[in-house]
């Protein structure tokens, strides 16, 4: 299991999640419109969930139907970066 950042993060990028993540597994660049969780490093602690003001973060098994594709989008972001 992992946590997934979804559409409400787009153009918000509050970064409150980064301030609490114990694994530092949330990443992004200035050019990205949202932040991404590295599924390989996420330990499923859910610390980021209450820290997100946009309610954009869900456990991968609980992502709302309309944002299901974001699990893959998060994973793909790190594909060529490691």
């Amino acid at each position, binding site marked *: 299991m992992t946590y997934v950042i979804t559409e409400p993060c787009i153009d918000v990028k509050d*970064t*409150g999640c*980064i*301030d*609490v993540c*114990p*694994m*530092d597994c*949330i*990443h*992004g*660049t*200035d050019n990205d419109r949202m*932040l991404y969780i*590295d599924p*390989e*490093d996420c*330990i*499923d*602690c*859910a*610390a980021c969930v*209450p*820290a997100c003001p946009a309610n954009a973060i869900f456990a991968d098994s609980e992502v709302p139907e309309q944002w299901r594709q974001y699990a893959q989008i998060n994973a793909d972001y*790190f594909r060529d*970066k*490691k």
Partner: protein
Amino acid sequence: MLKSKQASPRSYRIAGPQRRIDERETPHPRVDRGELGEKLRKWRKSRMDVDPFRRVFGGGGNEEDSYNSLYDIYRNLPEGRVNPVKTPVADPERMARNIKEIARFFGADVVGITHLDQAYVYSHRARGNAAAGEKPGDPIDLPHRYAICLGFESDYEKFLTNNSRISDAEYGLGNINSLQPTFLLAAYIREMGYPARTHGYGRFEVNPIPLAVNAGLGELGRHGMLIHEEYGSRLHLSVVTTDLPLAVDKPVDIGVEDVCKYCMKCARTCPSHSIPFGGKEIHNGVERYRINVDTCYKARLGSRGEWGNCVICVSSCCYNKPKAWWHTLAVKAIQWTPIPLRPLLIRPLLVIDDLFWGKRPWKHMKWLDYDNAPRKMVCTIPGCNVKHVNLQHKKLHTA
């Protein structure tokens, strides 16, 4: 005013039948089997080569030389025979007093005695003592009547360097310090002619925490550990089970049940958000605060090889203080206050605690060649420019 000795513990409640836990379900064996992920399994097996302290204190890896790890040596020591000449015990209360004095003489800092509740005896062993012919998966039959619970203090200052090699070394030493007195006490009882078994670091057949609570060593905290009135949670526990006739102690009320409702310091500071902010839950017939052991364990992967045992919850607990009259006074004041009035005292004490010891207690220390000063975070993802910060600068959890 209330009696500090209680008929039953306040900090947990038996709500239904309890299933005996299989030791193989506990975190270390699960990690060894890779049930918490291959990454964590590899970390546990390979971290021994990082630091000499980790190698001498052992603790799970299999790459160190076992003869350099006292833990490995003790874990596999055979236990001696019971002396056929039995020393008669006319007065179990006097014997209990003597056993406590002997345990302290051997090196224990705190001692308590309780009946051995079979609910806290593991059903099957995860590792076992090879010298005694035990194998992983063997059913455990421990018919002893009493559990002598021993506590060994760790250094307050070194634990305050939490998430460092320094606190890690202190944690490892605490485990090792508990081995010899526990072995000696069990051997002493066997030489008196009564069966006795050691349960200590790396070789437990019982869960020491509920037994220690029942034995009056302290209360069960929100973070799932024993809280002692003087040492907080920086106690390493071990147990000797025996049939030696002994008078048992009663659980104590030192105010933990009330303080944990309001404090939340461990929940706010736990890096992996593993300690609940909410109320107690019923799990396996016991009502208590339930921590997330999986995320607690997995957070070790975030240590970047710096440490193996986080201990933030131990050092942040408001009961974790150096030995001082003002700490004793604060705990006694809570203890002596009637339960309904305790929040009136606890709330201001918690404000004082945050004020003097900080919302995230931590200490910079240089020791040997170790220095736990926060290091600049370097992100390994190319192009990432979000502001990762080290643990001491992360935001506290609020829920």
